[in-house]
């Protein structure tokens, strides 16, 4: 079953340029999905469309099989969201925020939320504005989890945190995923972390999706071929990126490990990080320029 499905999704702000175009993918349930792309690639737009904060210019969004409708946002009870820089009402105490969450949501697990905050040593009588950045992020995550969503969407949740706070935040998130059937969609620039945390990826480049799939399959479906520099005109099937030395070339190609390699080439596996960077750095294709 898919948690989130988008079909031909596009968003144009005013009469200006398209922030997102022709996006189609399925996100499997129970996974941790990483949304990756350069700044301005359309990540936040895509996340906001997915949770109904924005209405699409074209295409549609389905949450757990049901179309997301702006006029009847009942489906949103199943979605939790932590926005960029995890904003909280700064003048509210942590207890106020819990009270607010309980009043605004039909299903709100305050017991677990209080337990989690106690474990993290976050005082309930402290005003949100006086908490450290890491604590604010943890409170925002705790509130989103207390809603007991089936899909949790996080927009660069740990980008502004120091390494230790970041680790604690991600640790809380991993624990929460282990505790439930939660599906997580998070945007991130921390490519090194993706390999450990995510089991599915969506890559955006200039408002278009350039790669999507299970991380295991993506890694198994690509490899680096090293060998004598090929004829410039020779077409290599599934070529993603090439680095050339004077006599030697390294080619990142999309082809399964089972495809036999020409004896001139040495085939090596590729890391997820290498793969992601190669796709993000790919030169613009003609149809991508508009």
């Amino acid at each position, binding site marked *: 079953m898919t948690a989130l499905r988008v079909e031909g999704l596009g968003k144009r702000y005013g009469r200006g340029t398209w922030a997102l175009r022709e996006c189609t993918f399925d996100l499997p349930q*129970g*996974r*941790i999905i990483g949304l990756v792309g350069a700044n301005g690639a359309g990540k936040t737009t895509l996340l906001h469309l997915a949770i109904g904060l924005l209405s699409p210019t074209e295409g549609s969004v389905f949450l757990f099989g049901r179309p997301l409708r702006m006029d009847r946002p009942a489906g949103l009870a199943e979605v939790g969201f932590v926005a960029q820089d995890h904003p909280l009402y700064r003048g509210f105490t942590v207890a106020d925020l819990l009270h607010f969450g309980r009043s605004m949501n039909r299903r709100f697990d305050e017991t677990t939320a209080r337990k989690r905050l106690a474990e993290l040593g976050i005082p309930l009588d402290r005003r949100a504005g006086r908490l450290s950045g890491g604590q604010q992020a943890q409170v925002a995550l705790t509130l989103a989890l207390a809603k007991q969503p089936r899909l949790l969407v996080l927009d660069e949740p740990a980008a502004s945190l120091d390494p230790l706070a970041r*680790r604690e935040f*991600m*640790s*809380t998130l*991993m*624990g929460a*995923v*282990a*505790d439930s059937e939660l599906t997580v969609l998070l945007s991130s620039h921390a490519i*090194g*972390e993706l*390999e*450990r*945390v*995510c*089991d599915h990826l969506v890559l955006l480049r200039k408002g278009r999706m350039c790669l999507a799939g299970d991380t295991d399959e993506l890694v198994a479906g690509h490899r680096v071929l090293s060998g004598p520099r090929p004829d410039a005109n020779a077409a290599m099937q599934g070529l993603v990126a090439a680095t050339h030395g004077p006599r030697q070339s390294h080619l990142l190609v999309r082809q399964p490990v089972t495809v036999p390699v020409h004896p001139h080439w040495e085939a090596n*596996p590729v*890391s997820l990080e290498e793969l992601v960077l190669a796709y993000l750095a790919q030169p613009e294709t003609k149809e991508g320029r508009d």
Partner: protein
Amino acid sequence: MFAFRLDTRSGVPTYLQLVEQVRHGLLLGYLQDGDQLPTVRDVAAALVVNPNTVAKAYRELERAGLVAPRAGQGTFVTGNVDRVPAATYAKLSARLRAWVNAAREAGLGPDQVRALVTAILDEDRSKARAA
């Protein structure tokens, strides 16, 4: 409780690293029959890895017959590895250390040592097969 660690630079997939650590723990006697492994949740939170990855490692260990889940209690080591007595390990590793020192003094780098060990192991295996 057994503690896992991750080498993020090794290039070895996370689930395989976890599987190998349990296997090593058993071989070296750090893990013994009846020991409990930490829960999937605890490992995922401690190492900051996807719980699905930890679950995959545990399934793999279960398939290999090294651990078994007990309903409602957790995952336990069933110790089906041929264990060598600790004293034998100590004696062999002391002699190996002396040999590695000699190799270094003779100018061999780690890669050359590894290549030599692999070659000798291969030779040994083919000899055993021929016998």
